[in-house]
């Protein structure tokens, strides 16, 4: 049946019912607008956080561990002899031949790799003690694998080699211990070693966890603290595309045999929290769009009721039932389409308004403007879902009304 005709009938119904049409459009516009706002806020904060995470952390960390504990003599010999009090075989700490490993990784890695020594220490300043992770680095190679150099707010990476036992600490830790650049602190390691070190730089990554619990030194100082001279116990890899980290980690692990952890794996708990949050927010957004299209349901119910005579006429003239039904679905979609356009505008304005607001972000421990993520996907998806909801919302009242036999209406009218 001529779509033109259906469109013109639908248009006539809609344009002669300004108030109802506006209510329907308003409903859809609110739903779409708020959905876009929520999506922008949610993804904005998430992407902002992930970006900081990816900027701050190595994309892949290779540790001097194996995924599975080496087979112990007791297990090896179990069937033959029973042994007791056998000491565990501990492989020697450190990555063997790190230079060779790095060279071979560099040959294929879409990124770069740098050596480090990772250990834990307690920073003691005037009685205040905080346990931290200390990473010994090579300042010249470090710039290739981390943004540490750009995160310095006082001092530089190069200053590490200028002072004896120089360290770089995070801003949050500096505040906690009331340490200033140039101060001397005491570093205590597990083996009982105590070294006095000088703060030569302060950085701020934006991640509270890092700013409070991570400090850097030269490789040598870290090695001294571990008590193992000349070992490298960690390789850190930075990739051009952080999203392939998982794949690269698997490859590196297969090649070197050392446990290689991607940033995604290292933050699996956090990412799964995101997934839960995504699920909840998506459900709420879907419900919002559905609810907003209920205004359309009401309006189409009213129109089909008012228009039952017209429906009977059109059917008695020989218009097919589904064609008549489609008129009302088109009406709903007309209201929906205009509503969506307004909703897009509303959504954009709301996002803009939010982006003008600064709040305290507990994840980064800083007051920053709200990060809004603008994506055409938000507009397309909310529009598509909304128009679908409108079509479905109209379908049921339209079907009910157009099913009625014209004779029933005609008899009732005359």
């Amino acid at each position, binding site marked *: *049946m*001529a779509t*033109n*005709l259906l469109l013109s*009938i639908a248009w*006539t*119904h809609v344009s*002669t019912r300004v108030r109802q049409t506006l209510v329907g459009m308003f409903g859809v516009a609110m739903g779409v607008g708020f959905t876009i706002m929520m999506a922008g806020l949610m993804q904005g904060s998430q992407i902002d956080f992930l970006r900081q995470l990816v900027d701050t952390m190595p994309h892949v960390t290779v540790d001097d561990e194996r995924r599975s504990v080496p087979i112990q003599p007791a297990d090896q010999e179990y069937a033959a002899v029973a042994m007791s009090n056998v000491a565990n075989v501990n492989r020697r700490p450190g990555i063997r031949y790190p230079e060779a490993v790095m060279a071979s990784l560099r040959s294929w890695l879409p990124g770069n790799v740098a050596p480090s020594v990772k250990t834990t220490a307690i920073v003691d300043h005037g009685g205040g003690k905080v346990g931290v992770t200390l990473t010994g680095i090579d300042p010249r190679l470090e710039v290739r694998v981390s943004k540490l150099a750009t995160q310095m707010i006082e001092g530089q990476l190069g200053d590490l080699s200028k002072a004896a036992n120089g360290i770089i600490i995070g801003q949050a830790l500096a505040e906690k211990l009331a340490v200033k650049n140039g101060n001397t602190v005491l570093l205590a390691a597990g083996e009982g070693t105590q070294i006095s070190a000088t703060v030569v730089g302060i950085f701020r990554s934006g991640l509270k966890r890092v700013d409070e619990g991570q400090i850097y030194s030269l490789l040598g100082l870290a090695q001294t603290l571990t008590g193992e001279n000349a070992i490298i116990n960690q390789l850190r890899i930075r990739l051009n595309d952080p999203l392939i980290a998982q794949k690269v980690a698997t490859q590196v692990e297969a090649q070197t045999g050392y446990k290689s952890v991607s940033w995604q794996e290292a933050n699996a708990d956090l990412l799964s929290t995101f997934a839960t949050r995504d699920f909840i927010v998506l459900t709420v957004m879907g419900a919002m769009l559905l609810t907003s299209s209920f205004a359309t349901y009401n309006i189409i119910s009213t129109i089909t009721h008012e228009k039952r*005579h*017209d429906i*009977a*006429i*059109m*059917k*008695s*003239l*020989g*218009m*097919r*039932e589904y*064609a008549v039904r489609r008129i009302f679905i088109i009406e709903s979609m007309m209201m929906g389409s205009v509503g969506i356009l307004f909703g897009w505008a509303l959504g954009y304005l709301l996002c803009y308004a939010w982006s003008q607001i600064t709040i305290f972000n507990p994840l980064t421990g800083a007051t920053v403007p709200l990060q809004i993520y603008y994506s055409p996907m938000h507009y397309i998806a909310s529009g598509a879902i909304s128009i679908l909801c409108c079509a479905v919302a109209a379908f049921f009242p339209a079907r009910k009304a157009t099913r009625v*036999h*014209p*004779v029933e209406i*005609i*008899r009732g*009218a*005359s």
Partner: protein
Amino acid sequence: MSEIALQTVGLVRRVEGIISHTLINGIDLSVEKGEFLAITGPSGSGKSSLLYLLGLLDAPTEGEIIICGQPTSKLSEIERADVRLTKCGFVFQFHFLLPEFTALENVLLPMRAAGLMSARDMHQRAIALLTSLGLGEQAAKRPNQLSGGQRQRVALARALANRPEIIVADEPTGNLDTASTEQVFGILRDIADSGQTVVVVTHDAALAARADRRIHIVDGKIQETTFGGKPKSESAAATGAAIASS
């Protein structure tokens, strides 16, 4: 022997319910092409019910309706709609025009629904139909801007739009004054004279007497058939030709 436009065989329409009721109780009827048939009968005798069956608005419980040689009892709902669209034009007592549309748009509706002509041809035909029914000036008016007689003529033009073989009208003059009644009836007469088949329900015995044949229905059965009708006048034949050619 002339062509049969409309035929019913053993037509029965029953409504089942707490109290079952037989609206049409065995009607056999043949209407020739170009015949003007009037149906009369007391209120509640089943005239409208029969007309709804003839116009394929309703389906019989038993029996068959043959429209232009095509049996209709086995047609699907969509096929029945298509027959209504192209072969039967229905006119109701109450005009039943779409209120938001102009007279012209109302007449265009069945043509647009059928989609068999170009937009230009449809427009020309609608204007010609309205003009031939004396509504050339009213084409752009909405139903609520028209008189009762004018509305009924627009409805008639709409029924004629797709050149149906058969026009069925249920008391088309029931709400009209004498002058309008005369006019609408004259047009129906002309339509029949031009070769289209017309079946009209009326309460008015004088009008019924002017049909080619009149059947009187009581309790859903044909009680009496009367042949007669006025001889065709010259002017009527001329209007009929104008409508047929438009």
